[in-house]
């Protein structure tokens, strides 16, 4: 049970409180803070979006470079008991088998962007090491260069290739080491004056 005098006093005090004028400066300060926070939030979202786009672009560039970069490969040494006259076959490096495998299928990008040519199936063949050359190191990088070579020159270098004509030319991928020396060859096709094998 509430005291009557107390109740009257409370009602009067509540009325007095309700009549109290609230300073307008509070509203100005609060809404000003709201605007500042909203601007900061927008700026942060914009910065995050720019960062994400930049990261995606950098990632794309890095992945693109990784795909076209020539990777190191190892030549498997000729094991004992194997005929040394038979040319060695290039195999992927044991340290980096996945990367070396990429070399076998990697294609250098062409500068001119013409229509894609029909790729010969010989590109899937492994490289044949040129006899008596120093094998590539595990971390040594190699470059694949596509060129036309006289077939007799390849035969003279010790590669198991038979020249149908003395002036026949072989379209081949040559694996060149960091020292600029050819280490392995992959013959794609052989052409004479009137025929193509």
């Amino acid at each position: 049970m509430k005291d009557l005098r107390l109740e009257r006093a409370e009602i009067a005090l509540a009325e007095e409180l309700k009549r109290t004028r609230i300073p307008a400066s509070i509203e100005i300060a609060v809404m000003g803070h709201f605007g500042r926070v909203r601007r900061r939030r927008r700026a942060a979202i914009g910065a995050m979006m720019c960062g994400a786009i930049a990261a995606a672009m950098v990632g794309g560039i890095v992945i693109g470079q990784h795909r076209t970069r020539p990777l190191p490969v190892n030549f498997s040494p000729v094991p004992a008991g194997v005929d040394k006259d038979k040319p060695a076959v290039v195999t992927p490096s044991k340290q980096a088998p996945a990367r070396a495998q990429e070399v076998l299928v990697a294609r250098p990008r062409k500068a001119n962007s013409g229509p894609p040519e029909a790729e010969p199936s010989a590109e899937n063949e492994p490289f044949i090491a040129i006899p008596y050359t120093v094998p590539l190191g595990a971390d040594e990088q190699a470059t694949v260069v596509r060129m036309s070579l006289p077939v007799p020159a390849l035969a003279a270098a010790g590669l198991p290739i038979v020249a149908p004509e003395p002036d026949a030319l072989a379209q081949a991928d040559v694996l060149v080491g960091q020292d600029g020396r050819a280490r392995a060859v992959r013959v794609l096709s052989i052409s004479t004056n009137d025929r193509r094998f």
Partner: protein
Amino acid sequence: MKPEDLRDRDTFHLVYQAHHASVFRFVLAMTGDRLKAAEITQDVFVWLIDHAGRYDPARGELNSFLLGVARKLVLKQIQGARRWVELKRSVRQPEPAEPGNDVEALRQAISALPQQYREVVVLCDLEDHTYEEAAEALDCPVGTVRSRLNRARQFLARKLESVKRSQTHERCSA
């Protein structure tokens, strides 16, 4: 009202218009100081802007939530102010209420109440909030609100009675 809605300027302005008076009056009654009340009211809404996600509509009304925030800021302010004693208060006692002015006597009696009793009197008796709303704002059970309010009323009634007795005594001696 969802917390995400508070990020919209117009919605927030409506929320401010609807609740700022209630928050201001509560803080004013708790502190008895207009400047502090204005400052804490501003802090409550600035806090709401920065922490809108803390409001959970499932737990109660936005007004109760804001009063709860205001209460915490008032407590923080009181705890901070304990380290300092005003010069005028240290040398001069508060003036007694004028004879016949129960409102002023009540104001002084309320300000003399311990904080947990003062806040229930302000919310339930002066601001006409229900016990449930007060319990949400104070983050305590409804039964606690009832018992605190009962004790606070007894204290205030005794205080007003003593003021009345002293006034009668003064009249007789005069």
